[in-house]
């Protein structure tokens, strides 16, 4: 699938979807309200895909993603308000520096993150999330608990789609190489990977940092789309929702992440479910998936369906 995706078929698909959506927007068939929802869906795709990198390919679940996003968002807003370049260039700088700030934070917490066993890492990432949130609330230059309002609106549809497409292409490019194979084998048998010459520590660090970078960029896009940010948007419950999307889509399964992120971002608005129930449904689905998941880190729906089909055939015959 990876080879085909990277070839013209995959790129055509990406471009094709873009054209369809663009036509819809320009011709007013997709109105402003839905355009915003789609854009949020694209941002969520970036977040979910990068979280899948950090967790599915590393075998460690972490809840720090909304902290990376918060850092990226606030840094980006700070840059776009204070730097001296013309508007959109500021934004580009802001996105990049937001990503870098998130990466630096990831780097700082990665040293302990690598050494602490999985379940304590989750608690540590919850703690990191809360620290970031509390810092934002308490530091007045960051707007305190009422957040920052009146952010310039830079994230138009084409740009957000472009960033998302670049990130997806980047991930596939890496996946189909020796680095991608190395990253995929680490969660399966880390000692064996090491003995094959793979530097597991730096590989994990690299992936963790890249995932944080993408989350930071997504945070910048988010801030300039919503035009308002406040600390409560970046609670660790958002991390949990993202993790739910990752698990439902399948750990290690990039296309699954894209699909589940899109569906879960758009569904609540299709069915008019209030925000209270939205999180509940995501999380319940995640729990159901975990209950029925076979004991492996990489969930493969294709295999699951194939096995189920074979079981059914056996019963019929």
């Amino acid at each position: 699938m990876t080879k085909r995706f990277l070839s013209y078929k995959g790129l055509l698909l990406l471009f094709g979807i873009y054209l369809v959506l663009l036509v819809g927007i320009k011709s007013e068939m997709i109105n402003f309200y839905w355009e915003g929802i789609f854009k949020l869906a694209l941002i969520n795709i970036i977040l979910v895909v990068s979280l899948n990198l950090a967790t599915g390919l590393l075998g460690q679940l972490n809840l720090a993603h909304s902290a990376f996003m918060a850092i990226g968002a606030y840094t980006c807003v700070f840059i776009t308000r204070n730097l001296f370049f013309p508007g959109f260039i500021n934004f580009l700088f802001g996105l990049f520096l937001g990503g870098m700030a998130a990466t630096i934070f990831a780097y700082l917490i990665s040293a302990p993150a690598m050494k602490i066993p999985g379940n304590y890492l989750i608690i540590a990432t919850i703690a990191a999330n809360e620290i970031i949130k509390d810092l934002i609330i308490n530091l007045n230059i960051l707007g305190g608990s009422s957040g920052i309002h009146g952010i310039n609106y830079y994230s138009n549809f084409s740009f957000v789609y472009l960033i998302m497409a670049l990130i997806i292409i980047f991930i596939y490019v890496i996946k189909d190489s020796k680095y991608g194979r190395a990253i995929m084998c680490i969660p399966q048998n880390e000692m064996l990977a090491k003995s094959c010459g793979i530097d597991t520590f730096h590989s994990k660090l690299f992936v963790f940092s890249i995932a944080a970078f993408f989350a930071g960029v997504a945070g910048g896009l988010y801030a300039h789309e919503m035009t308002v940010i406040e600390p409560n948007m970046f609670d660790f419950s958002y991390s949990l929702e993202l993790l739910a999307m990752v698990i439902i889509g399948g750990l290690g399964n990039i296309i699954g992440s894209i699909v589940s992120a899109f569906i879960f971002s758009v569904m609540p608005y299709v069915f008019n479910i209030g925000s209270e129930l939205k999180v509940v449904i995501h999380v319940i689905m995640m729990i159901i998936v975990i209950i029925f998941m076979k004991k492996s880190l990489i969930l493969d729906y294709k295999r699951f369906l194939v096995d189920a089909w074979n079981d059914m055939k056996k019963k019929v015959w």
Partner: protein
Amino acid sequence: MILLKLNKLNLVFNDMRVIRDLDFIVEEKEIVGLIGATQSGKTVLFDLISGFYKANTGKIYFEGEDITKFSVEKKSQLGIARTFQNGSIFSELSVKDNVKIGFYNFINYNLKNVILRSKKFFGEEKRLSDEVYNVLKMFGLEYYENLLAGDLSYGLQGKLDIARAIACGPKLLLLDRPTNGMDKNEADEFMDIIKMVNKKFSTAIVLIENDIDLMMNICDRVVVMEYGTVIASDKPVEIKNNQALASISFS
């Protein structure tokens, strides 16, 4: 020519001396059997050689170079390959990808080539595919190349294990109970494969097994360990017939 030399190694875990004053030598192209009671330190010795544990005192020399403090990855790049007890394959990767990982140290492109998808990248990947196919053919695994490694039978997994380990022609191969779980026929077939690997790749092999009969035909030398140190080192026949050692239960 001495390939690997262990000199007075000591390892202490939680106030317990696991390896004590261990001396061990492996010559080039030699097949050495390693045997001993449980907990006598055989696997720990492998861990020390490959770098998962660092000895408290003592030195390890590989081809004359002091590699005592090297990391696991660096030792692998020098040409030390190893398998682990209970199957060391990547069960969620395909058979082909498992062997590709075996070639990891010898793929010559960097991140820039990957991102820009340069000619070098495609060239190396093609070369890799060809070499992987050759290795699989050598072990009779070429028909399974796209199956998931976890779906293979136990015997085939063992073969895949070796295929991955010798993919880049290491100078030293450490095998930790590779025939665990195999029946007698599979185990004998496996020993033939080991002999073939040794001849074809000129790889020195250290083999941990529980059954001295398996070692009779292929090992040039058998080393007996007990309580973390070497107590005997001789031809297999001599070890088997040695009355003093017969009292040690090999398991």
